[in-house]
C-alpha cells in the first residue's frame, strides 16, 4: 500500500533523512519510533505531500506522492505534530471546513461531521470555540479532522504528545478502534505507546532506519538474556554473594541498598530460586520483577550494536 524507496531529504546542508526504504501493507498499524530530531516528522510530511523529498520515491496505492499529489492526498488523513486548528473557529464548523477541503460533497459533509464527532467523542464540545478547548479535546478535533473523509491511510504524528495520562489512554483507545478499518502510521518517542498499539515498528535514528521488525521479535532479539529486579527489606554484605552463587546468573549489581539487578541466561526462570533464597535468609521480599526493556535500552543497543542487530 505504501512503498518508500531510497527517500532522502535535506534542509540546506543538513540531511534530515537518508535513504529510507520500507513498505507498509494494507491494514497494518506501524509505529515510527525515534528520538526527537530523528526525522520522523520529515518523513511524515513527505508521505502526506506537504513537502517534496530531495530524492527517492514514495508510492501510495500506486500513486506517486510528488507526481500525482492531488490523488494521493485524497487517500490520506494527516494529523501533524501540532494539530492544524483554527483557534477562532467552532469545532463543528472547523470539521465541516475540513470535510469540504477534503472533497466531501456538501450534502454529505454534515453526516461526515456527525460521524467523526461520534467516533472521537466530541459531542459535548462540538459547539465550542477550538481555542478554548482543553489540549486533549483539541487533539481529538485534530484526529477527527484527519478522519473526516474516511481515508484509507491515517498518518498521525505524535498523537499523544503533551496530554495527561487519562487523555493518553483515551486517544490510544481511539486509535486502537480505528486500527481495524484503516492503515495507520503512528510516530512516537514513547515505547509503551507503540507496544500497545502497533504490530510492527520502524526505528529511526539520525535520519536512518536502524530496524524494521515486529516488536516482540525485536525485543527478544535484542535481549541477550533476561534481567530481573529484586528489592528486599534487609540485606547485608552476604546477600549479593548468595545471589551470585545461584545457577544461571551472569551478573548481580546492587543499585542501592536492598535493590539488585540480576542478569541471567535467557529463559532461565530463576524467580523461584531467588524467592526461596530470600525466604530462607529472611530478607523480606518487597519486589521481584522482570526489568522491561526501555526505549533508551533499545536505542542504545541498536545504535551501539547495529551490525549485530541488522538481519
Amino acid at each position, binding site marked *: 500500500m505504501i512503498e518508500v524507496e531510497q527517500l532522502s531529504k535535506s534542509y*540546506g546542508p543538513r540531511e534530515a533523512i537518508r535513504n529510507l526504504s520500507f513498505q507498509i501493507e494494507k491494514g497494518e498499524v506501524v509505529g515510527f519510533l525515534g528520538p526527537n530530531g530523528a526525522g520522523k516528522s520529515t518523513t511524515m510530511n513527505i508521505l502526506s*505531500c*506537504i513537502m517534496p523529498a530531495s530524492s527517492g520515491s514514495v508510492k501510495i496505492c500506486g500513486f506517486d506522492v510528488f507526481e500525482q499529489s*492531488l490523488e494521493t*492526498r485524497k487517500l490520506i488523513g494527516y494529523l*501533524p505534530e501540532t494539530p492544524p486548528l*483554527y483557534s477562532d*473557529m467552532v469545532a463543528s464548523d472547523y470539521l465541516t471546513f475540513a470535510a469540504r*477541503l477534503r472533497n466531501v460533497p456538501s450534502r454529505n459533509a454534515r453526516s461526515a461531521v456527525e460521524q467523526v464527532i461520534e467516533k472521537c467523542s466530541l459531542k459535548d464540545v462540538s459547539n465550542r470555540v477550538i481555542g478554548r478547548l482543553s489540549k486533549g479535546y483539541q487533539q481529538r478535533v485534530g484526529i477527527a479532522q484527519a478522519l473526516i473523509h474516511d481515508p484509507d491511510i491515517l498518518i498521525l504524528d505524535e498523537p499523544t504528545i503533551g496530554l495527561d495520562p487519562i487523555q493518553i489512554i483515551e486517544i490510544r483507545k481511539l486509535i486502537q478502534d480505528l486500527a481495524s478499518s484503516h492503515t495507520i502510521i503512528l510516530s512516537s518517542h514513547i515505547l509503551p505507546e507503540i507496544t500497545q498499539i502497533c504490530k510492527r515498528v520502524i526505528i529511526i535514528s539520525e535520519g536512518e532506519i536502524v530496524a524494521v521488525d515486529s516488536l516482540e521479535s525485536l525485543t527478544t532479539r535484542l535481549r541477550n538474556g533476561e534481567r530481573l529486579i529484586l528489592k528486599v527489606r534487609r540485606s547485608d554484605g552476604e546477600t549479593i554473594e548468595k545471589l551470585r552463587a545461584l545457577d544461571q546468573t551472569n551478573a548481580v549489581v546492587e543499585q542501592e541498598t536492598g535493590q539488585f539487578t540480576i542478569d541471567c541466561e535467557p529463559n532461565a526462570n530463576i524467580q523461584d530460586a531467588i524467592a526461596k533464597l530470600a525466604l530462607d535468609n529472611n530478607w523480606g521480599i518487597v519486589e521481584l520483577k522482570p526489568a522491561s526493556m526501555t526505549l533508551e535500552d533499545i536505542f542504545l543497543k541498536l545504535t551501539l550494536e547495529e551490525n549485530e542487530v541488522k538481519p
Partner: protein
Amino acid sequence: MKNTWIVAKRDLGSFFSSPVFYSVTTVFLILYGIVFFILLNSFSFASFQTHQLRGADIGLNLNEMVIEPSFQQMAVILLFIIPLITMRSFAEEKKSKTFALLLSSPVRLEEIILGKFLACMIVISLMMLLSGYSIGYLVFAGQPEIGPILTGYLGIFLMTGCYVSMGLFASSLTDNQIIAAVIGFGIALFIWFIGWGAQAAGPELGQVLEYLSLITHLQHFLKGLIDSSDLAYYLSFILFGLFLTHRVLESSRWR
C-alpha cells in the same frame, strides 16, 4: 473553483469574527468621513461665494470638486488600510501551523491563493460599500455625472486588487503578521512614490516610471475614462503579485 470558494469562505468567517476587521473598518470610515466632510464643506463654501460675487447661478462642478478628490483620498487611506487586512492571510496560517491542513488536502496552491485573494477583496469591497453613503448622498442631493462615479469605483476596485496582491505576497514571505504588514506598506508606498520620481527623472525614464505608478492609471478612471492600457496595467499587476506569491509558497515547500 469550488475549492477557492471554500478557502475564501473560511477566511471571511475568520475576518468577521476577529476584532481586526471591525477596528480597521471603523478607522477607515472615520478617516474617509472626515475627508469627505472637509471636501463637501469647502465645496459649499465656494459655491456660496461664487453665488454672492457673481450673483448669477453658476453651478460649480460637483464631480471635479468633491467626488474626484474624495476618491483620491480614499486611495491613500486604502494604501494604509489594506496591508492590515492582507497581513494575516498566509502569515497566520504558517504561525499557527494550520497551513499543513491546506497543503495536505486535495487543493491546488493556486486555489488557496485565489481563495485568500477573493476573501480580502470581498472584505474591502464591503468597506467601500459602507463608505458609499457619501456618494449616494451627493447623487440624491445634487446632480453629479454618474459615469465618472462608476468608473471611479472601478478604478479604486482595480487598485485595491493591486494592493491586495502585493499584501498577499508580503504575507507569504513571513510567519509574522507585523512584518507582513510592514513589507506590504513598503511595497505599496514604493509603487506610489514612483509617480513622483517620474516628474524629476528625464523624459524617457520619466515616462516609464509614470506608467509604472499606481496613481497615474487611477486618474483616467476618475475622469470617467476606461483606457485598455490602464486595465491591462492593473490586471497584469494583480496577476504578477499572485504569481510571486505562488512562487514564494511553492519554493518554501522545497526548503
